[in-house]
């Protein structure tokens, strides 16, 4: 028995020794190859970076950008939350002031591209104050009216089934609904106030949730939209994967976001306007310079049109395409889950 124990001890030591050797061998080969192919400074930096990740690997030490500042991933979410908590009350006023009202055209373009039909279910993520949701409901209503008008113009009297479908309590065709999901309770509060003041009661629900971890089951929605929200998400790839998960097969993903301006002259004007005027507007109207400084910086840090298209394709979307609005100031990306 002592001999067996000794043997197993030896084997264990040999296994440990071997694994230790393998790790060292791999490390040495890696460093050796790197030393041959790169200069010393780059080599040291790369090695330091890769070894750091290997040592820690936690969210606290993975860094990301918060505007032009570098913060840890864990910090970014709470800082973004605070920004939107501060700006929620004046969010709509500031949108109108900063974009001179053009943001309404951008959101209308999103709805036209989306072209929802009665019965569609939309998930509007980061849709805090409800701009997209209200437009969706209006669009659906106008589509329904158009269908009714077309039916009447063709001389068709509505069948008993159509009439009973039109009754609110009756069953029949699934009602279109929009779920507004946002991580920030203040923004949702403002959205609900707007819904109350518009008198919108049905077809709308407000959910608190994180775009990286949506509180919905798989295959729930026909349409997923995220307007001017995805650049605030800490891990964009995670948000895209979640979008893919909650969409039904055949469902469409639509993203409206600030992007790279194509024309160089317009780009200079846009940069000057962004950095000189927008924080001042934020200070005067909303009393908050830093949140709007963060806004214009986060736009610069977001990937451009082609990169974002690549991210969408990596996440698993098909037929990804984008449309530039206002010369590239805003890009509308669309993809399908097949």
């Amino acid at each position, binding site marked *: 028995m002592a001999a067996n124990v000794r043997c197993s001890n030896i084997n264990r030591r040999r296994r440990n020794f071997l694994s230790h050797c393998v790790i060292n061998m791999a490390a040495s080969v890696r460093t050796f190859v790197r030393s041959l192919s790169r200069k010393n400074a780059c080599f040291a930096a790369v090695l330091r970076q890769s070894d750091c990740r290997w040592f820690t690997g936690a969210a606290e030490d993975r860094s990301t950008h918060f505007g032009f*500042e570098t913060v840890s991933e864990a910090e970014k979410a709470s800082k973004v939350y605070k920004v939107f908590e501060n700006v929620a009350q004046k969010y709509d006023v500031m949108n109108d002031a900063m974009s001179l009202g053009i943001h309404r055209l951008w959101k209308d373009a999103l709805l036209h591209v989306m072209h929802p039909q009665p019965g569609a279910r939309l998930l509007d993520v980061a849709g805090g104050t409800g701009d997209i949701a209200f437009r969706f409901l209006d669009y659906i209503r106008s589509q329904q009216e158009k269908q009714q008008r077309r039916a009447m113009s063709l001389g068709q009297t509505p069948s008993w089934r159509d009439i009973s479908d039109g009754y609110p309590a009756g069953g029949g065709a699934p009602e279109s609904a929009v779920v507004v999901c946002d991580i920030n309770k203040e923004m949702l509060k403002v959205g609900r106030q707007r819904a109350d003041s518009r008198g919108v009661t049905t077809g709308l629900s407000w959910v608190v949730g994180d775009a990286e971890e949506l509180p919905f089951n798989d295959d729930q929605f026909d349409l997923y939209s995220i307007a001017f929200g995805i650049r605030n998400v800490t891990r964009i790839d995670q948000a895209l994967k979640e979008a893919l998960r909650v969409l039904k097969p055949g469902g469409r993903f639509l993203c409206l976001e600030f992007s790279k301006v194509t024309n160089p002259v317009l780009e200079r004007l846009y940069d000057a306007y962004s950095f000189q005027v927008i924080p001042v507007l934020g*200070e005067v109207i909303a009393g908050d310079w830093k949140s709007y400084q963060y806004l214009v910086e986060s736009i610069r840090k977001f990937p451009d049109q082609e990169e974002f298209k690549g991210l969408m394709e990596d996440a698993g979307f098909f037929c990804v395409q984008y449309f530039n609005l206002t010369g590239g100031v805003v890009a509308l990306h669309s993809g399908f889950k097949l």
Partner: protein
Amino acid sequence: MWLRYCPRFMIIRRQHIELSTSAQFVQQLNTSRRDRSHSYYDGVYHGHIQTTPFQKALLAVGSGVAALQDPYRHDMVAVLGETTGHLALVSLRDRMRNDPEGLTILTERPRIRLSTLDLKNMASLPDGSFGREYLRFLEDNSVTPDSRTQVRFVDDEELAYVMLRYREVHDLMHTLLGMPTNMLGEVVVKWFEAAQTGLPMCALGAVLGPLRLNARRLQSLFTSLGPWALRNGRRGRCVLSIFYERRWDQNLEDLRQELHIEPPPATLHPSRKT
């Protein structure tokens, strides 16, 4: 067994790399922590926001309009003062430097805040002393010395302190002049400050403030209080040069005489509404 065949120099190099990477890792962790505390937004002083002249001009216009539309937006009044007051602040700072007590203030940088005031001690001072009257003023008008906005748009650190001192000393002005915090009292103090400091924001407030007063108050402002405030502002000693924190037990009348300020012509009572 691979180690047996590994040349000696590679072992040494690997050990060196491991040591240096762990040292560099520790260094990187420390520097990144320091860098995080020194965020991008730190300018010349805590809370400073670097602005171009174009932005300052835009801020001045915007804050002026916002302050006129809603006079209760104290932050807009503050921003207007900071963006338009550079020349006045420079002349104020020079006046403080020429005064020995003012120079002490510029070097020691005292702050007037609830945490730095000893309220119990001040309450025990005799009536008529500066500290006791100041405390009475705070209680009667339900104000606190902590409500001043941070200075953000002044690019020089010393001038930013002068601006901050001016804001913190505003309540002491009320005590010195015997004016409550209602609209008439504020306008009178603004006239005094405009004459004293020359800040454009004070001048604007002095001109536009009376527009919100009723006829009776306007009359008292233009006949007695206003000229008194202007006269004393012009010939009085620079009020920012006084080290108030060391004069709590001084008699108020003595302090007024020292600053060449006449006693107020009429006693105004604090009221809840303007």
